[in-house]
């Protein structure tokens, strides 16, 4: 579905991503874990070109692009087929909850107003927020806002859903409702890549887990392998700190 090769990105002196290869199959769920500053978020943001890499090639749905020299038209085309859930939600404050969800359907995917509304309401029902359709985003709790963010990201049935630390900005008691929605949308069989610090969630929801450190992929494998006794020492050190903190 998506395959990237040799992605490199530096911000000034700082080399954030040092030649990463990554691949995700249709319907596969990949979790990316790793310490802060390891380049996880930057990496997934290159997938929809919110960050433009200095180097790398991408094959998206059969078409290959040179990522550094990608044409605006190619970038817009890829963005139309991807969705993204942001750590800080990024809902549009001047639009109602429903309008947030259906804006892209109307302006990008040429839905009629009625069709867009029907699809939007269906999605809001799915994330349990039908009664908030006409509310302003800022009247919602963080967990509710993120559920709207998820509905907005999957509205146009993207082939790839990118979730960048979807629960990191939430109060602990609101994390569960968002994780439940993410687990539920797994049923849609779209490819999903999740950057997360929720180790238990990663273990439960992911088909594969990738561990990043210092801008590189250090280990990659099934959840069983990644949390086993045979995992690489650096990974074990990282995951064990989480077990101490959270269980």
């Amino acid at each position, binding site marked *: 579905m998506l395959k990237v090769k040799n992605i490199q990105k530096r911000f000034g002196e700082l080399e954030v991503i040092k030649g990463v290869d990554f691949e995700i199959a249709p319907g596969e769920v990949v979790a990316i874990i790793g310490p802060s500053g390891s380049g996880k978020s930057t990496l997934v943001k290159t997938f*929809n*070109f*919110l960050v433009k890499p200095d180097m790398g090639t991408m094959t998206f749905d059969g078409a290959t692009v040179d990522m550094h020299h990608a044409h*605006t038209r190619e970038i*817009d085309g890829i*963005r*139309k087929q*991807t*969705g*993204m859930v*942001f750590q*800080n939600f*990024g*809902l*549009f*404050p*001047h639009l109602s909850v429903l309008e947030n969800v259906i*804006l*892209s359907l109307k*302006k*990008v*995917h040429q839905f009629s107003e009625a069709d867009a509304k029907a699809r939007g309401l269906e999605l809001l029902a799915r994330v349990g927020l039908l009664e908030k359709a006409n509310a*302003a985003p*800022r*009247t919602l709790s963080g967990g509710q806002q993120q559920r709207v963010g998820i509905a*907005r*990201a999957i*509205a*146009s049935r993207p082939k790839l859903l*990118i979730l960048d630390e979807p629960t990191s900005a939430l109060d602990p008691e609101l994390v569960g409702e968002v994780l439940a929605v993410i687990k539920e949308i797994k049923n849609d069989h779209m490819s999903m890549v999740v950057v997360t610090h929720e180790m238990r969630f990663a273990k439960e929801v992911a088909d594969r887990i990738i561990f990043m450190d210092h801008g590189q992929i250090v280990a990659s494998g099934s959840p069983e392998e990644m949390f086993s006794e045979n995992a690489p020492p650096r990974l074990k050190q990282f995951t064990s700190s989480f077990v101490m903190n959270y269980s």
Partner: protein
Amino acid sequence: MNRFDLGILISSFFELAKALPLTLSVGILAMLIGLILGTSISVYRYLYNGPLNKMLAGYISFFRGTPLMIQLFLFFFGLPQIMPLFGRMNAFQASVLIMGINASAYVAESIRAALSSIDSLQHDAGLSIGLNRYQSMWYILLPQAMRVALPTLGNTFIGVIQGTSLTFMLGLNDLMGLAKMRAASNYRFFEVYLAVGLMYWLITILLSKLNDRMAQKLKGEAN
């Protein structure tokens, strides 16, 4: 010495009201030009980085950094000597155009500041749902920037209305032009100029009230 005559003040006030449509149309048309031009400039400066960007910064600096009166004289009396085409404009057209250009510099500054106050996450979120950068600007960034800039834009409009009092120097019979003529004919300078001052004050109060209401309403929507 004359004694203050309330009757002349009142009659002058209503006499001057005849020029109100002209003053308001110059002000409103100039503000419209200012809004369209100023918004376009700030959107361009937000989206692009190039030589034109620097020129636009110079344009804004010039029109904010020189007195309106000098701009009116320069472009109405001066420019036609160099470019005769501009001599074809009458005083009304020239006033609207020059004041519009002047207002555009202030509008561009307000909207630039408003745009830069909006979290870049908003633009990213717009792009992430497939909007191109122009759509993201139009549907996501500008509507929010306009709300932020509204109080400042209201003040710019008040400044434009007050600035129209200079256009009589191009020969326009606006409020000030009419007041000057009336004072010259009846020699009641104090009453006539007080009347015209009160007229501008009244317009300003009404516009400020309207501005506050709109700001209040937007604030209500935002919560």
